[in-house]
């Protein structure tokens, strides 16, 4: 009982633990798996990310663009399109991408209420 009372008094005298969200924000650590992003100029169109994605949120669409990889110019045939709301933030695409073209940014992803956007 005394332990409870002491902790109660300590809390009464110290600041609340709650973070009032819109006013203050939690620091996001480095390496956080947040919103998924595609760096278009780095992508070589290998579609490894689409194959490895467990949620099948990445689809490859035809796209003939000339890009530069290690000084050489090649033409890629496809590029990934991400359905953000299907992403489960497992980070496998980031890990398997050979050219660091698909990354998880250190920011929280938005939420959505529209079902059509959500399930696509």
């Amino acid at each position, binding site marked *: *009982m005394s332990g*409870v*009372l002491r902790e*109660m*008094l300590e*809390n*009464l005298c*110290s600041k*609340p*633990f*709650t973070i*009032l969200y819109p006013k203050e924000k939690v620091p996001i650590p480095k390496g956080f798996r947040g919103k998924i992003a595609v760096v278009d100029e780095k992508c070589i169109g290998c579609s490894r990310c689409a194959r490895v994605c467990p949620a099948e949120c990445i689809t490859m669409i035809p796209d003939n663009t000339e890009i530069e990889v290690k000084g050489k110019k090649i033409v890629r045939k496809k590029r990934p399109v991400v359905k953000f709301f299907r992403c489960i933030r497992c980070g496998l695409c980031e890990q398997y991408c050979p050219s660091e073209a698909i990354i998880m940014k250190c920011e929280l992803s938005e939420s959505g209420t529209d079902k059509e956007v959500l399930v696509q």
Partner: protein
Amino acid sequence: MDLLLVIYVLLFPGFLFLLAYGFLLQYLDRKIAARMQARVGPPLLQPVADFIKMLGKEVIDPAGVDRAAFDAAPLMALAAVMTAFLYIPIVGESPFAFQGDLVLVLYLLTLPTIALFLLGWLSRNVFSSVGGVRAVTMLFIYEVPFFLALLMPALMAGSWSISEIAGWQQEHGWFALLQPIGFVVGLIGLQAKLERQPFDIPEAETEIVAGPWTELTGRRLALMHLTMQVMLVAGSGLIAALFLGGPLLPWNISPAWLATIAGFLMFLGKTLLILVILASLKVATGRIRIDQLNDIGWKYLASATILQVGIVLLMDYIRVGT
């Protein structure tokens, strides 16, 4: 005089003050509990906002419920506790004080529990019925020690009027010091009456959803919450008057108006003290089971009160004898 009486009943320190103070006490209660639990707690006007919001919500009638009775029960409970409040001294003596108002107040403060039982029984919901039965079972457990503890000051002061008991303490000292056991039992009984932890058995969220409150919606819920809020004010005012000398100061202050203001501040201070004690009790405990309450109530609370009765009778005997 009549106008003053109307002002007393309706504005200050009657219903308007009562409602405002009820909201304030609820805010403080929630805020203190939240801060002790390392949370932020609600803003100042949150209880008012909750009340207004609930008043505006749709009233849902459970299938087959007796609507008139279902509407009437919260109103009856609220009316009872608001009436009870009028007999409690806030600034000096209550103008309605008479010999025996203590018994009336105790009776009126029992009515919300009966209303809760009725609501539980009427709403035809298993959780509500179980909750209602629990509320009444609990009433039988805590009511006896609570009544005994609260009647002891009357016995010692030789008066059945709350205001006179408060006045008696001006000369002889607080009953909280003369009858410490009664004071503690009174506080515990009040906590049980208000159905707060550790006595929130009838509305145990994790067991029976919200007990009798489960089927209450809209204004019924708002009124029932308001009843509990008002009961917190009336109950703490009653304990303050009976055990802490109410609004009266232990010494005389010469201008009457200064004495009135000082008395009012005394009332506020004492009720807030009681609130802090009750809020800490709420934070520091979990919910006990009804059979455990039965054990505790009859074994410890009741016997402690009987002991107190014995001591009071002995003290009276010695005092009268000398």
